[in-house]
């Protein structure tokens, strides 16, 4: 019996990577809040999940996240600015905070998996 370390953390390392990438996209939106014509973008997690679901055979016990080839979508603003900038600071800050929390959640899951493995190895 052997432990496959690449599979041990399951979906969470993919999730962590995607969260970190999304942090970059959201940080870009916040950074360009006063750039004329800048259009806010985001990753569509639901579409990523759907494409992962669609590729499966219906029953999935370990659902992979589609981390490759995900598309950046354009944010639809509530009140478009006159200079063509579609960043709304409140929306972006909320998304950023939510994304950071979800990053911490994924991190906690990975940490718990690692602790379990450490216990299994030390035979406690």
């Amino acid at each position: 019996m052997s432990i496959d370390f690449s599979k041990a953390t399951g979906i969470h390392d993919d999730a962590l990577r995607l969260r970190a990438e999304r942090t970059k996209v959201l940080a870009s939106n916040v950074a360009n809040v006063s750039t004329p014509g800048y259009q806010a973008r985001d990753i569509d997690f639901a579409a990523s999940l759907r494409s992962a679901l669609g590729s499966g055979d219906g029953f999935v016990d370990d659902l992979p996240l589609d981390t490759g080839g995900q598309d950046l979508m354009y944010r639809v603003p509530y009140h478009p600015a006159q200079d063509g900038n579609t960043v709304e600071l409140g929306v972006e800050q909320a998304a950023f905070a939510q994304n950071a929390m979800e990053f911490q959640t994924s991190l906690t899951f990975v940490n718990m998996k690692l602790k379990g493995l450490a216990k299994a190895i030390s035979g406690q």
Partner: protein
Amino acid sequence: MSFKQISQIAGSAMSAQTVRLNTIASNLANAQSAAGTPDSTYHARKPVFAALAAREGLGEQQLPGARVQVLDVVESQEPLRKAYEPENPLANENGEVFYPNVNPVAEMTDMLSASRAFETNVEVLSRVKSMQQSLLRLGDA
């Protein structure tokens, strides 16, 4: 993980907002700098921002981020304020002096907007820093 790029993005925004604050300070300081000819009068300055897609080192699983760059600092084309002040030593032969086209109210609101944008990016940086630190503590008890 792309934390380095996030820091660069937030840092570029902070320096761009600093340039903006710099021009605002210059405009407000020179709001009353009169001159005898329109050409030698101080004109209000505005920075022009542009998004710069950060594509260097782009792996196949990396999404593009966008940094902020200051394309140029342009001078306002608003008309100058002409005043009749024959006692002013700078007045021309008609007794007129020209005052800069600085709008102090617009500059003050612009200053608030710039400093808030700066602070937001500082928050982004500190949040990313705590994310990176908790990633480094992975596996600790």
